[in-house]
């Protein structure tokens, strides 16, 4: 693979996707410290939001240590060069949240839907596109669930609603490099040439780096990752590792590798409540194609109702659940516990 001389924009997820393994308890001060260090290391774009996006504060997804407004206000002030992005899932957050985030000083809004439901993002992308300076991104989650041809229809819809960049998102960490290549290359061929194309990976099958390279090779120019991999499931593409590989291959990111490594080791790893890595449960997510942030919910329900978290995750995959259906997990665990009890009689 020859990627020599390619330029890409790297986007760090620690302070948004990383909120999942932290159960949304990262403090404002921790975010400010980490974002300032990332800015200093030359990371151009940093996402800051509740793990489930603006307005995610809820019983269903978890109440965060601070509000989105508090996080965004503090972090936007703490960085000099980096842009700050916020995530918004229609159905959870609204255009009111979008306006609030723009008021806090974000440079980028990312509007995320399930891969077949892009049309619910129309009002949000339309509004975002009306802010002339706002980088407006459409983000199609669980993109492994449909074929490349179907995915393109949805990506184009987001492009038409006003996105200047669209993402193919492997929320379950299920994709293999060929899955990425087929989707990204078709998207690159079919979308407008000026529309940027991104890839967001999860490391559940340890494919984060390989998939991100495949994406760059097929024409993606934005890559998500997180330092030390702090993200849902087995985490996002571990960014410092990806940066080292980019360095070796001559891909230009503009980021200071050693500084990035130091942030991962000195700031992010000590922050972890548990080691974010490929283990039995996160591997199950990737193998079964399950939304990565279901991980801790399945673990908690398994413990509460005396079940195997792997069994719960496999069943969630079999039922083709989508992002946001966290409420399904306790309901399913209760069903499985009843079945187990009946079987034991």
């Amino acid at each position, binding site marked *: 693979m020859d990627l020599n001389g390619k330029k890409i924009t790297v986007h760090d997820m620690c302070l948004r996707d990383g909120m999942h393994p932290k159960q949304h308890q990262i403090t404002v001060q921790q975010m400010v410290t980490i974002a300032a260090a990332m800015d200093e290391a030359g990371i151009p774009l940093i996402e800051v939001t509740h793990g489930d996006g603006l307005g995610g504060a809820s019983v269903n997804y978890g109440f965060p240590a601070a509000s989105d407004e508090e996080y965004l206000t503090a972090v936007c002030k703490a960085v000099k060069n980096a842009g700050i992005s916020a995530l918004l899932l229609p*159905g959870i957050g609204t255009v009111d949240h979008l306006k609030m985030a723009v008021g806090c000083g974000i440079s980028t809004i990312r509007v995320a839907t399930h891969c077949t439901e892009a049309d619910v993002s129309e009002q949000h992308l339309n509004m975002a596109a009306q802010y002339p300076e706002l980088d407006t991104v459409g983000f199609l989650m669980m993109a492994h669930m449909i074929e490349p041809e179907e995915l393109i229809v949805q990506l184009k819809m987001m492009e038409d609603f006003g996105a200047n960049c669209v993402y193919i998102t492997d929320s379950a960490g299920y994709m293999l490099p060929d899955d990425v290549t087929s989707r990204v290359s078709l998207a690159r061929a079919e979308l407008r040439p000026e529309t940027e194309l991104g890839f967001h990976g999860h490391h559940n099958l340890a494919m984060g780096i390989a998939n991100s390279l495949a994406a760059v090779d097929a024409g993606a120019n934005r890559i998500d990752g997180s330092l030390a991999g702090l993200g849902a499931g087995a985490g996002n593409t571990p960014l410092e590792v990806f940066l080292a590989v980019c360095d070796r291959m001559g891909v230009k990111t503009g980021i200071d590798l050693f500084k990035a490594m130091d942030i991962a080791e000195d700031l992010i790893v000590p922050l972890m409540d548990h080691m974010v890595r490929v283990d039995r449960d996160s591997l199950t997510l990737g193998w079964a194609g399950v939304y990565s942030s279901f991980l801790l919910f399945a673990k908690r329900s398994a413990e509460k109702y005396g079940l195997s978290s792997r069994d719960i995750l496999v069943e969630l995959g079999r039922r083709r659940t989508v992002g946001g259906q966290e409420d399904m997990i306790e309901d399913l665990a209760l069903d499985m516990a009843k079945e187990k009890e009946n079987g034991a009689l």
Partner: protein
Amino acid sequence: MSKKVKAAIIGPGNIGTDLLMKAMRSDFIEPVWMVGVVSDSPGLARAMEMGLKTTADGVDGMLPFMRDDGVQICFDATSAYVHAENSRKVNGQGAVMIDLTPAAIGPFCVPPVNLEQAVEARAMNVNMVTCGGQATIPLVAAVSQVQPVEYGEIVATVSSKSAGPGTRKNIDEFTRTTATGIERVGGAERGKAIIVINPAEPPLIMRDTVHCLTVDEPDQDAITLSVHAMIAEVQKYVPGYTLKNGPVFDGNRVSIYMEVEGLGDFLPKYAGNLDIMTAAGLRTGEMYAEEILSGRFTPVAA
């Protein structure tokens, strides 16, 4: 029952047609007009076959005939954008408007919780909140009738096929209107609503989760009783309204997991979200009709 109150349905789409099929069975309501805007709409043709008068000129096409035809109740199954204008026009002809759009210009009505008050107030326009609201607000109310609820949150999961273009284009209306309904009708101090659309095949039956955070420790027995009683009330007009699990108690959290299967009149059974809307709208209309038939209420031009 020999005498029924005559009614019009505005909007011959999925919701309007399903409502028509339910209304044809009603003891209190006789649908006589179907109003559309597209002359070759299959919904208008179907209504005509069923013996209704139809027009493709919108509400204006019906207005001159309304009084002579005795229409005293109208159901609006169009969109939030045109609702206010429709309502003003039919109110002007002395008909009550039951609003199935998320326009919410009139007071909210969730039948097992506050239908009687809405009818007693003689409101000339009542709003049916949202499908997710109809499916969940009764349960928030069931908890708040036992003890104070500081926060009520609902998650409605619907199949892709049952989420129409109106819902999709304006999904924020759903979350906002439902959240307000959780507060005003459900009795929670603060409300939040989440909607998830799932494209799985075969389509999944509407699922609803209700989470309440009570101010004090929940009275488990009283809440469980209240929830079961409320479910029985809703089942009177939506038989497929089913408790799957719960109430689960965890500290001050009360969680209830529901499934809503529709009757399958015009819309498929999995579309419980649409069925509960048409059933609640019709029930509201029937209650008004009973008041009108008993002579306790005569709608007058606003």
